[in-house]
């Protein structure tokens, strides 16, 4: 395990150097908010803003991704053959990812990497990425990671952890991949005991700064069908406009739709993020839609996140407490309120 300290500009310089040879993806502030993007010449990573507007799940699970290609040219010998689209899975690095987002990949992995089905695009992308995390010294008012099994200084899903100590970063490897990276980067100075103490204090303060919380202790006990039939679903969330903003900003939402696009004689099979908030999500080929009413879709989303997932996988709720859905929702549908209603429900 390597534990070093780097002056801030030395660390930025190391990342910039890395960005010249490989893809480095980090939060970049575009004016009103930050998003994860591949660092290009001149881009300055934003390690100060608390959280990016959209989660970094698009690094491993792009919003629109070509899966297959095919030709419909009858003269061609490749006519009608689905070929896997060529991808570049060269090692890439994500820097400045927060512990909640890093942990989200572990929660989502159970869906894409199962004993029976393996999603090669997700898995290849995930395994070729090294995650350099940044611990959160201070939580936002909408963060509640500690209620979901995470922590502002959590290491789950990270290969390297960095802690902002003011004028320098403490950089620690968590996995072999991380160690390999730090060996490549080199430089820095050995972390002193003083620094380690300071980091421990910062961690304590960070955990204490998480003011928002949800209780989920009762969710497992409740009967699924009882919770499903609860009255509060019918009208508490009437303000929802079914826009999909929550699902698209959420690091643990994973639904997608596959579509073929044909331009003249060439076709692509593309997958795009889909949202259970969209009415079209469950529309059947014959026209029937089992969730054509708004409250059914809202119920589905929160039952999936807070009941079906924990029941099925026993890894806690399908939420890392990042608070993005709370901030993005134009109608102020707050998962913390929903969790409270669900957890406190009794028949």
């Amino acid at each position, binding site marked *: 395990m390597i534990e070093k300290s780097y002056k801030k500009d030395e660390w930025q310089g190391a990342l910039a150097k890395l960005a010249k040879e490989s893809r480095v993806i980090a939060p970049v502030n575009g004016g009103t908010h930050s998003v994860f993007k591949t660092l290009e010449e001149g881009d300055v990573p934003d390690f100060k803003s608390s959280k990016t507007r959209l989660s970094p799940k698009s690094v491993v699970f*792009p*919003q*629109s*991704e*070509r899966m297959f290609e095919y030709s419909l040219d009858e003269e061609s010998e490749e006519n009608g053959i689905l070929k896997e689209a060529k991808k570049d899975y060269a090692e890439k690095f994500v820097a400045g990812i927060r512990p909640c987002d890093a942990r989200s990949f572990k929660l989502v992995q159970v869906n894409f990497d199962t004993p029976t089905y393996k999603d090669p695009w997700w898995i290849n992308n995930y395994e070729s990425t090294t995650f350099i995390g940044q611990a959160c010294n201070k939580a936002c008012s909408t963060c509640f990671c500690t209620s979901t099994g995470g922590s502002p200084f959590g290491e789950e899903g990270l290969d390297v952890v960095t802690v902002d100590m003011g004028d320098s970063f403490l950089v620690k490897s968590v996995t072999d991949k991380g160690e390999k990276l730090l060996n490549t980067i080199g430089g820095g100075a050995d972390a002193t005991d003083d620094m380690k103490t300071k980091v421990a204090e910062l961690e304590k303060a960070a955990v204490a700064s998480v003011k928002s919380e949800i209780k989920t202790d009762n969710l497992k006990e409740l009967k699924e069908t009882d919770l499903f039939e609860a009255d509060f679903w019918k009208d508490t969330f009437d303000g929802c406009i079914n826009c999909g903003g929550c699902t698209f900003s959420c690091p643990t939402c994973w639904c997608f739709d596959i579509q073929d*696009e044909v*331009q003249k004689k*060439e076709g*692509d099979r*593309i997958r795009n993020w889909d949202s259970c908030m969209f009415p079209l999500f469950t529309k059947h080929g014959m026209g029937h839609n089992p969730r054509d009413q708004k409250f059914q879709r809202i119920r589905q989303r929160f039952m999936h996140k807070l009941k079906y997932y924990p029941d099925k996988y026993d890894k806690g709720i399908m939420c890392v407490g990042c608070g993005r859905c709370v901030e993005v929702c134009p109608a102020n549908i707050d998962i913390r309120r929903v969790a409270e209603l669900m957890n406190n429900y009794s028949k």
Partner: protein
Amino acid sequence: MEKEMQEWQPKIVAFLCNWCTYGAADLAGVNRLQYPPNFKVIRVPCSGRISPKLILAAFRNGADGVWISGCHPGDCHYIEGNMYARRRFTLFRSLFKHIGIDERRLHFSWISAAEGIKFAEVANDIVKTVKEVGPAKQLIKEKAQVA
């Protein structure tokens, strides 16, 4: 002739209303009036059927220009279809210009079934104009730019 075949030829989609302009096109043909072959003609029942979706679909598929033509106002086979269309076209053209696409790619005309000569003249002029603008570069849907 060879030079013409080698230089770039614009592809123009022509939405012609069945009752008037399509008849004019027929008349132009019957009278052996010369007009360029750069048009892909789509016959619609009325200019009022033209929706912005259709025009954008033409550009998305690589059209360099779009020509929409119908009956003269007052003479519409469906009485007033072209009247509604006129307002739609006005606003569409304005928004199209607002996003920075050369307005010389979009053409509108009222040509009655008796105006074969006018049809050929307008057709000639449109091809000339679109040639000046050059190949389309905007709003063309090619292979999806995705990961």
